[in-house]
């Protein structure tokens, strides 16, 4: 197995061959990928070295110290966090070679076409249809439907897409998983404005979009199972981040508290102390999860971190607005804009308050996460369901 020392050596070699100060960022990132130092736990030839995931930190630290460019992970988070692990696990060799390198370097941005207006919590109810168009070597699929809550769709080159390929079987069984070319003329991306005033997401209308069969990921009808990989990776990514004490929203709040004694009341003080404690408990929970992952004992805390984060974020942002009182009545700017990144810290308290409402909805609502914890972690029985065994086309929607 690759050791930390070996990684330090390899990183030094990369830096020696490609001086960051004298190399185009993209060229450097490609070289880093080719050296297996992109994501060290990926296989050799696909940007990694088959090393333990935890050792990535060693490489990152060396490169950061040398002033090397990074691949702007926040901009390409969907590709890194959702598309890449799914392609790695279910993709053909050809798909892996084609997609992973430009995904990791950021040359090609990815988005995710899963949710639909009628399929939110019940994602498996999705109605977007993919119909096979003939046979032969040119065989492919024609896709029609409407997707929603797609971030980065207006920037994306590719999308991971769930579509129904067989309406005659129960809903979880008739779904397939595709890579969709966002430059196809049948793809129509429209901004979806949120309550913050921004259009961080998009609606995506798919009309006669053609997808070659070579861009199908996994077997026909296996889409639901594959999507679970995608979604689990999303949640682990959220839960496993390392944050310092007072990182994030609680830090903003505590700073305001310290700087502005005139705003303090005993009521707010009690809530601040509670929020600070909650934030620290959540931080320690995430840290414990990270330590478990590092020694290969992933605990179920990952699925829960998102739930806890949403609860805390809403509590803290609501408190911040109350603390600011007169200032909390204000709002910077309602003008519609299309941010590339969501930055909680860069705008005002009102924005944070409103944006945090989405934390308990996007990427698996808090209600769905509670179901998951109750059933998968606590082993409580599922509710009686009537929709699992009937053909999709006959199910009540």
């Amino acid at each position, binding site marked *: 197995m690759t050791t930390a020392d070996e990684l330090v050596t390899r990183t030094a070699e990369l830096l020696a061959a490609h001086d960051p100060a004298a190399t185009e960022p993209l060229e450097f990132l490609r070289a880093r990928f080719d050296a297996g130092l992109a994501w060290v736990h990926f296989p050799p030839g696909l940007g990694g070295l088959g090393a333990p995931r935890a050792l990535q930190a060693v490489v990152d630290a060396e490169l950061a110290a040398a002033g090397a460019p990074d691949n702007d992970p926040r901009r390409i988070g969907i590709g890194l966090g959702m598309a890449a692990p799914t392609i790695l696990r279910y993709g053909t060799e050809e798909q892996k070679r084609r997609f992973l390198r430009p995904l990791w370097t950021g040359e090609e941005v990815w988005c995710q076409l899963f*949710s639909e*207006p009628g*399929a*939110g*919590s*019940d994602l498996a*109810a999705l109605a977007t249809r993919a119909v096979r168009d003939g046979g032969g070597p040119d065989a492919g699929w024609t896709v029609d439907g409407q997707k*929603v*809550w797609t971030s980065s769709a207006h920037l994306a080159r590719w999308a991971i897409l769930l579509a129904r390929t067989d309406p005659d079987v129960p809903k979880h069984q008739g779904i397939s998983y595709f890579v969709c070319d966002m430059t196809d003329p049948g793809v129509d991306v429209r901004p*979806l*404005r*949120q*309550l913050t*005033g921004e259009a961080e997401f998009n609606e995506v209308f798919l009309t006669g979009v053609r997808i070659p069969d070579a861009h199908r990921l996994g077997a026909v009808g296996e889409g639901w199972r594959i999507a679970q990989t995608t979604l689990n990776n999303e949640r682990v990514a959220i839960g496993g981040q390392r944050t310092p004490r007072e990182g994030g929203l609680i830090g903003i709040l505590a700073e305001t508290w310290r700087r502005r004694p005139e705003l303090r*009341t*005993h*009521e*707010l003080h009690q809530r601040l102390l509670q929020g600070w404690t909650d934030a620290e408990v959540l931080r320690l929970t995430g840290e414990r999860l990270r330590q478990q992952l590092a020694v290969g004992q992933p605990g179920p805390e990952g699925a829960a971190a998102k739930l806890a984060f949403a609860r805390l974020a*809403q509590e803290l942002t*609501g408190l911040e*607005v*109350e603390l600011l*009182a*007169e200032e*909390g*009545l*204000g*709002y*910077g*700017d*309602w003008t519609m804009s299309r941010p590339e990144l969501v930055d909680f810290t860069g705008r005002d308290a*009102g924005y944070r*308050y*409103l944006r945090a*409402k*989405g934390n*308990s*909805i*996007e990427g698996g*609502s*808090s*209600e769905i996460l*509670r179901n998951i914890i109750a059933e998968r972690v606590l082993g409580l029985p599922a*509710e009686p*369901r*009537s*929709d*699992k065994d*009937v053909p999709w086309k006959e*199910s*009540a*929607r």
Partner: protein
Amino acid sequence: MTELDLLYSEVEEDLRSAVRAVLADRCPPQALLTRCEGPEPQDPGLWRTLAQELGVVALQVPEALGGAGASLRETAVVLEELGRACAPVPFLGSAVLATTVLLAAGDRAAGEWPALCAGDRTAALAVPLSTAPDAPFPLGVRADAAGGLTGAVTSVADVPGVGLLIVPADGPAGPGLYAVDAADVTVTARGSLDLTRPLADLRLDGAPGRLLVGPDQAEAVLWEALLTGAGLLASEQLGLAEWCLATTVAYLRERRQFGRVVGSFQALKHRLADLWLDIAGARAAARAAADALATGSADAAVLVAVAASHCGAVAVRAAEEAVQLHGGIGMTWEHPVHLYLKRAKADQLALGTPGRHRASLATLATLPAPGGPLPRMPHV
């Protein structure tokens, strides 16, 4: 304590129906969305209708002065409906806060009533909307001996289109409440979390002011206006919360997921049952505050503190639950529920936060804080 009347009279129910019908017609949610991004976030046409067709902008003003001669109970009912519609009209600022001061000013305000009662002119109280009843008298504006007012006031509600400003100021003989023509004041709009209740900053540079209430009464009258505002705001919050619950229930009875109507899922049912319970409490508390204010009960300050703290929190919770239980659609700009969320959160800060109102019970209900003697409660 006198017996409180916590019910709605037939007259009040008729009033409610009339207001509700006009609002359903004149400010349906879609119109609200269009208006709040337009140049006129508040709706002067609707205001004139409320004044001229329904006569509700001066309900508690005596008939002799051109009002309806009703009581604050009826005013509270109108606020319930305005809250339910998230209506973009300056009712709180003009018909509640400013009107309370003008009624206390007696003859000095006599000339103002015709235009106000007719809806041709609105008034606003020039304090930050977040001012709590027990806040110290604001001293940001100074009045000179000739009545010229100089200074600034921030975050004043219901200013767009206003004619008359009532400005608390520190005069030569002490604090006073002055009438100032809005045309003599520099008004700067500021971004408001609540899109349907705009805020503005005021700058006065020797603006001519007319003394309405002098130093002997100014603090007490301002307190009364703010207390009345906070107490009646609870009714607005009640109406808002009722809309959020009803709209969410209606949505969950239609929306299907997992082959079932979403509203049949027990976890959501229990949350909505708890919310309903809190709203039932809000109804009782808001009615109690309105009745106590209407009768001038000595218990009014306690009941306002109870209603303001309870209803302020319930409205926010109702709106937050509405957003959450609408799922993604509740996060969109197109769905009106966000307007209610913003109104609810702003209302929670308006005229004192729930925590601030609860804190006033330390004195009002003799529940002293740790250490030190009871703080003095002005005017009680």
